[in-house]
């Protein structure tokens, strides 16, 4: 083999150059003050999901392929417009990583169908709620639980919820009372849809808009319409609502609340219907 042409110094120089260039590049990229960085999962229709194209007002995702759309994106656009800043959507596939990101300063807002629970309020501030929904259970058509009227009809079922959410807390809290089994929480909704379709679980917990959207995208699924605190899970208003998360003491809080106040109950319902229609549109690939 020919002798190595690279002297030691050269190798060290190459490595040093590479690492320092990278560190400098990262340090140099300050968060642009003329933009607001909004984090979301982009995998929770109809609140926030990924599209392959920019139809229906979708916004290009800054750090991954695809365009983001949904109820949360619509709210984000309104907030960005009111603040006079450019909207940057940052995809956080890991829902649990959103709060640390806001705390670290990488994000200005979390608009990801996140509920302002007490535990979360200890770590970040929340705006006024921008939607409130019922917790329901999605099941397979034709299963024994299809016609359940309340939680007590789920005795003996295997139910699951998304990890790190209030849905899972509620599921856990009432497992003993109603006799169903709470399975280990899963990371994403597509995972739960898959588990349900293959029969690994009997049902998963979702918010009603999400359930509607999942059922429209997966015709073999349907959902049991429970009502919080009546036939369904015990949920305080704070748990059933979703709000915009931001850093503690954020200067944007008042402005965001103003924007949200300008949306009437009916406006919100219409936006949600619009988002659901877009979500179940042309972006579904036929399965088996």
């Amino acid at each position, binding site marked *: *083999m020919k002798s190595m042409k690279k002297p030691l110094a050269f190798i060290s120089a190459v*490595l040093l150059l590479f690492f320092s260039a990278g560190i400098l590049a*990262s340090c140099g990229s300050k968060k642009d003050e003329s933009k607001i960085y909004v984090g979301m999962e982009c995998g929770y229709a109809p609140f926030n*999901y990924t599209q392959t194209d920019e139809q229906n007002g979708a916004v290009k995702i800054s750090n991954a*392929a695809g365009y983001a759309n949904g109820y949360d994106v619509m709210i984000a656009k309104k907030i960005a417009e009111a603040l006079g800043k450019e909207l940057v959507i940052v995809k956080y596939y890991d829902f649990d990583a959103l709060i640390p990101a806001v705390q*670290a300063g990488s994000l200005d807002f979390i608009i990801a169908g996140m509920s302002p629970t007490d535990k979360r309020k200890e770590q970040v501030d929340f705006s006024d709620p921008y939607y409130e929904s019922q917790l329901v259970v999605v099941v397979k058509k034709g299963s024994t639980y299809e016609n359940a009227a309340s939680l007590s009809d789920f005795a003996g079922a295997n139910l699951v919820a998304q990890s790190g959410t209030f849905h899972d807390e509620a599921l856990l809290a009432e497992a003993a009372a109603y006799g169903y089994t709470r399975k280990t929480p899963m990371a994403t909704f597509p995972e739960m849809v898959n588990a349900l379709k293959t029969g690994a679980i009997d049902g998963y917990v979702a918010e009603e808009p999400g359930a509607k959207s999942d059922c429209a995208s997966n015709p073999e699924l349907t959902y049991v319409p429970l009502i919080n605190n009546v036939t369904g899970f015990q949920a305080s208003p704070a748990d059933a609502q979703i709000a915009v998360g931001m850093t503690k003491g954020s200067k944007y809080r008042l402005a965001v609340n103003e924007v949200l106040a300008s949306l009437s109950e009916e406006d919100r319902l219409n936006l949600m219907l619009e988002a659901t229609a877009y979500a179940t549109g042309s*972006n579904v*690939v036929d399965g088996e």
Partner: protein
Amino acid sequence: MFAAMGEILKKYGGWILQGVGYTLLVSLVSTVLGLLIGILIGIFRTTPKPKNKALAVLKKIADFLLSAYIEIFRGTPMMVQSMVIFWGFALLHGGRTMNVIFAGLLIVSVNTGAYMAEIVRGGILSVDKGQTEGAYAVGMSHFQTMRYVVLPQALRNILPSVANEFVINIKDTSVLNVIGFTELYFQAKTIVSINFNTFATYLLVAAIYFVLTFGVTRVLRLIEKKMDGKKNYVVLGSQNMDADSFARENAATGGQNNG
């Protein structure tokens, strides 16, 4: 099933290609950088103890730090390392996260470097001590010995291991999805979040990974063959033959020889 996979490929081909591109980029660059790191560490650790007392102490400290680096990066999962490095950086820099591509390259290079250091050390040890002694005997410095005599031989010996590391890296870059690096597995997750077709999507991605690793293995084997050169001569094992035996053997076989 195959129809579904074909559909996914047709509809999301662009995203998949992007994922493959990033996967290959990170694996290739990180393997090369890791090898460079390994070589540097290998040269440093085999340097003979300096005569100067102060330098000797410094070398001992440096050796210890390098050992710590190797043990820590080999002893923790790369997924955990990527979270620690990525979010640690963000914490130290008031929230600014590292550029994700750079983070991916850094994490995999540093991780690979730790493994390469051991591989290179093995390669250097596998070169006959006589080579080093001979080089010193003709007056070469340690660095010259390494550069002109030992490392070229060591590198040829460790080439299969390096190729192995490259293939391992192609698969292991999938753990970078936790920091949002858009390699192939991350793209698969995104696709599934739209089409809800878990099995077909991941089966397709598994097939793509296999094509990548198999292809790379074949190409690297070709390179190894090229490096060995033509087989119309044989290298003598001169370490186990003295001059007389060699001459005798040469005469007996009439010029043809088996080392």
